């Protein structure tokens, strides 16, 4: 019976210690939300610069206050190519809304001419940008294609997706959610 009592005492000690830790955390670790740029959900989306097809430098701060879908792609990536028509469909659906679709070609790992030819052949009309300096690839730690970031109107990354899974239905739902955030 004393063994049972010893175990019960251990349980009580752990519960008291845990309650104490909750109180200690409330005093010492009531951490405020920090604004820090990192390419992961919950953090501020890193600022970046890209070029449009005319060579004009576009800064991400231009889209401040708008939800952004940042889609990084290359012309040699078959999954990227399978997603592009879905992006076009979503763009047509949402182009009148205050939301920014950015398909950023990671040009250091691609040939810009080939990418431009691919866009022209398929008559995509959504905004295409070129990461000529590797700014997006570095700041967003892009290691696989496509990598997609959904950024809300406050500039916080709400989702990071590597690879496929970007069906039209999924993109439409996420766009609606982001517009709801707006």
């Amino acid at each position, binding site marked *: *019976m004393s063994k049972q009592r010893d175990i019960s005492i251990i349980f009580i000690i*752990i519960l008291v210690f845990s309650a104490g*830790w909750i109180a200690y955390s409330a005093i010492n670790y009531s*951490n405020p939300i*920090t604004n820090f*740029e*990192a390419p992961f959900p919950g953090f501020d989306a890193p600022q970046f610069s890209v070029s449009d097809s005319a060579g004009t430098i576009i800064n991400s701060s231009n889209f401040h206050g708008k939800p952004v879908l940042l889609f990084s792609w290359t012309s040699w990536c078959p999954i990227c190519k399978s997603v592009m028509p879905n992006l076009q469909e979503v763009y047509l659906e949402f182009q009148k809304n205050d939301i920014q679709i950015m398909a950023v070609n990671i040009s250091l790992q691609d040939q810009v001419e080939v990418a431009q030819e691919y866009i022209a052949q398929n008559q995509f009309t959504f905004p295409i940008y070129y990461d000529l300096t590797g700014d997006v690839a570095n700041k967003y730690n892009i290691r*696989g294609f496509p990598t997609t970031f959904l950024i809300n109107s406050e500039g916080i990354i709400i989702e*990071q997706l590597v690879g496929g899974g970007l069906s039209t239905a*999924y993109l439409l739902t996420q766009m609606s959610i982001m517009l709801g955030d707006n």
Partner: protein
Amino acid sequence: MFPVINIGPIAIQTQGLILIIGFLFGIQLMNQFNKSESTNASTMENMIYWSLIAGIIAARLGFVLIHISVFLKDPLSIFSLSTTMLDNSFGILVGVITALIYAQKKEILNWKTLDAIAIFLSVLAPAWFLSLYASGKMNGIPTNVSWAVNLAGQNRHPTQLYLFGSSLVFVIVILVITQIFKRNLPQKQGIIGLSFLSWLCFSLLIIQPYFENSPIILNRIHSMQLFYWSILALSFYLMHLLLNKNYGDNQ
């Protein structure tokens, strides 16, 4: 963080890979445990598979119901193979209910089943936390400790690795105590399951303040800590009852 492993032209999602490995190891260890307990391993395994299937279907249906307007325009997209269109909370709820119904039907709704499921989950838990580290989710707050991980130029607590280590310790302790299920624990029915729950809640309670963006109530208190403390207290109470019952039975 390593969200993707590149093998030539193939990019493999690390999070999914780690979870699959954890799932398979978990099933393997649970079967070994069931054999040592002379319980029906295949029934228990089937329960997990049914629960998984029901959970996935429910997760998709939950997602569809939330965004019904999109799917009314294109109903076929309900069957899309996309792994992103899932409502996790609803999926988990239905998965648990399915497991309970299956266990009830097969007459295995007892403490021994909870122990077996805990063995499975105790292997899946470290895999889950490691996969969160790989994908860069559930990050810690900034720190100067020497074991901090660098996240976009800032040192932070590796909270996922703390939980990975803690849950791995539980698996190792269970394996060592039972000498990999060759020795039965005295009075153990339900104790492994409740110990796992307690250990997990205790670990999360301790680590919670180190999470970035931990939800706060009343301006100071980490709300999830209160939740974990409640579960911890409940599982201790149940263990206390079980131990006393077993003690009474042994008299």
